[in-house]
């Protein structure tokens, strides 16, 4: 695999703020599990880099923007390897500007956009056009994946080497599984030339068929066709075996089931180069939510049972799940204000990712904050990007959070163009106040910004 790249090598409009003043977060709690830091410091950002971690109250502040950050926390910013920005084709649901603003508001310093747009991203020209647009519009660095197969049809390989040269950061047919094992095998062989990670949506459509929710007691009560857990886990096992045979590297997207965790753990134990992700909604919600028949709880893979959720949490703790990814999937209200079975699958998630996990898992003591911070920024590594770090000399990718702040999700609207959040109307703890991405301030929360000004 290519050597590790900086997040600033991705495309965004960030250079506009060149010549920015120094930024001093004064007396902030700095927590960076990778660096082994958890202490109060004056954190100084200068020329796009973490310049200094000085004892609280000691940093030189002349000419700098100073944020009195006592009681606030600075973490390495989050990195989401799995978002849908609906561009091109469904800009009524999201575009690069609104999607990246949502990312910045959620504390993300970088996001990777999936290729299942309309039309799908499968030519070098598509990648070039998206990168151009990101340089004009994106509030945080965006990387673009291209399809593994032409038109996402699962039949013929896309021009993976040329796409990689054009700047595709990886490949995925996300939204659909690559059901044909021969096609996947060829893609993994060809990975040696294209040299980019392949991210896999694992689902056997013959098993999931017309399912709209997890197959279990709740689907039995509702009479809704279920998606059995094995539709995911059997494909993971198959693809791990192919990856092992070809000495290839795969990233498994949005794990949802206990059987899937077991399949990944087995693969890792036998030395397969496999990484995987889980979403905030699968970690905090179960199929019990679907009893409401509210289409905001419909996504693919579906919310599963409590034992599945517990298995995912345990895997996040152990590291079997490498990172947390939102699978941010905006949909228009027309696609959601219909009976559950007819509704589109997917939820937005960038703006609530940290707060949902902090509220549901960290505050009750289920996961510790350091683990959550590490997994939320852990999405960079599987795609060959340097994980955000708070260390002198490192590119500044950090998020300032008030862990005491309580807010109602969606009450002040969303940065995203869509509002299909499964956390809408919930009281959440933990608010992102400021996001620094690739060395520049990408986001200031409105009331916080006015307080500073």
């Amino acid at each position, binding site marked *: 695999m290519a050597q590790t790249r900086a997040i600033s090598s991705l495309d965004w409009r960030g250079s506009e703020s060149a010549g920015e003043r120094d930024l001093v977060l004064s007396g902030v709690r700095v927590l960076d599990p990778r660096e082994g830091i958890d202490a109060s410091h004056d954190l100084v950002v200068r020329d796009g880099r973490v310049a200094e971690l000085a004892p609280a109250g000691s940093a030189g502040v002349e000419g700098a923007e100073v944020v009195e950050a006592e009681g606030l926390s600075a973490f390495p910013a989050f990195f989401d390897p799995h978002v849908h920005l609906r561009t091109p084709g469904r800009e009524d649901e999201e575009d690069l500007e609104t999607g990246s603003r949502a990312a910045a508001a959620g504390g993300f310093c970088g996001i990777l956009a999936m290729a299942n747009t309309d039309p799908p991203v499968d030519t070098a020209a598509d990648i070039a056009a998206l990168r151009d647009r990101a340089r004009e519009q994106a509030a945080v660095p965006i990387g673009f994946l291209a399809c593994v197969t032409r038109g996402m049809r699962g039949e013929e390989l896309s021009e993976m080497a040329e796409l990689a040269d054009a700047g595709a950061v990886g490949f995925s047919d996300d939204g659909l599984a690559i059901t044909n094992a021969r096609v996947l095998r060829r893609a993994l062989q060809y990975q040696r030339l294209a040299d980019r990670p392949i991210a896999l949506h694992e689902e056997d459509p013959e098993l999931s068929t017309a399912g709209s929710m997890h*197959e*279990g*007691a*709740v*689907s*039995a*009560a*509702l*009479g*809704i*066709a*279920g998606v*059995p857990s094995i539709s995911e886990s059997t494909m993971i096992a198959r693809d791990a075996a192919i990856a092992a045979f070809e000495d290839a590297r795969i990233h498994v997207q949005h794990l949802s089931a206990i059987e899937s965790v077991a399949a990944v753990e087995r693969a890792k134990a036998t030395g397969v180069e496999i990484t995987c992700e889980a979403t905030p909604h699968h970690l905090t919600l179960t199929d019990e939510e679907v009893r409401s*028949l509210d289409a905001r709880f419909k996504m693919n893979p579906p919310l599963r049972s409590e034992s599945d959720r517990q298995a995912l949490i345990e895997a996040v703790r152990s590291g079997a799940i490498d990172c947390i990814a939102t699978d941010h999937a905006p949909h228009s209200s*027309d696609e959601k*204000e*219909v*009976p*559950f*079975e*007819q509704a589109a699958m997917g939820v937005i998630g960038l703006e609530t990712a940290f707060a949902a996990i902090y509220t549901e898992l960290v505050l009750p003591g289920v996961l510790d904050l350091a683990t959550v911070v590490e997994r939320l920024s852990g999405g960079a590594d599987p795609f060959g990007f340097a994980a955000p770090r708070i260390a002198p000399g490192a590119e500044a990718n950090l998020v300032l959070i008030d862990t005491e702040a309580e807010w109602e999700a969606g009450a002040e609207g969303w940065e995203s163009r869509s509002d299909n959040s499964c956390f809408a109307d919930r009281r959440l703890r933990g608010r992102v106040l400021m996001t620094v991405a690739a060395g520049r301030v990408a986001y200031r929360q409105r009331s916080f910004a006015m307080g500073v000004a």
Partner: protein
Amino acid sequence: MRHLLAIDELERGDVDRIMARAASFAEVGRRDIKKVPTLRGRTIVSLFYESSTRTSSSFELAAKRLSADVISIKAAGSAVDKGESLKDTIATLSAYAPEAIVIRHPHAGAAKLVTGWTSAAVVNAGDGKHEHPSQALLDTYTLLDRLGSLEGKRIWIVGDVLHSRVARSCALCFRMMGAEVTLCGPPTLIPRGATEALGTEVAHDLDRLGEADVVYALRMQRERMSESFVPSIREYAAHYQIDSRRLGPRQLLMHPGPVNRGVELSPEVIDGPASLITAQVESGLVVRMAILYELLAGGDPRGGGGRDAELPVPTPIGEPA
């Protein structure tokens, strides 16, 4: 009660009230003039996105017996055919200011969704494979009429439970009334988690059918064969058909209709003495009258509204008060 959406959302008191009210309407049905003025001047919309004979006709006649004005809309030939969304259809129909909307829809939760878009009371006449509460209530009424009580009674629901909204509503309603319910069918047609979901037992053969007081057979769709749920209708019938050999003399037989003769039921039991199938249809009318009455003319005891305990029957039109 504001809406009738699912048995799952009812309490025992709601069911008891509807049963008592239906019994009083049964008396009206025996009079020469079978119509009462209770809902005169009220508008009821019947909106059916799936074909139906007995449910739609029974709701329509129930509304007419209560003197309501009824608009019946079938999906075929309506704006729905032209791609109008459910939300837009409801908005359009709401312009007529109906007091109630009776809706059947091929997808779960449709009736519940409609409650958010209209001020009318909403009656779920079947939402996908989820629930069919008026069917369960009329079946409960039929059994109470025959047995007096369901307490401790054993009821077997036999057939394609997976695809049956009737099975779900009936299992919940019969259990609420004190019965013990067993779901029986091929393993491919009993949903995973059924015991936990519905509080029933599960059986895959008819060996213990003799213990049932009531046998409730479900309709077996022929297309289940092509979907690999059963190898053949012939094999299904061999294992699960209720016939005079399997049905004991003291056991009651029910079916929601329409029956596939020779598949789930043999012809002789359909017309046999144990069959309640015609009684179910008769119950359908009075129970649906009671449901419409409950939603449109009944107070809400839970909401503190006034309610007469002894359920007087409104005076029929044309008879002295």
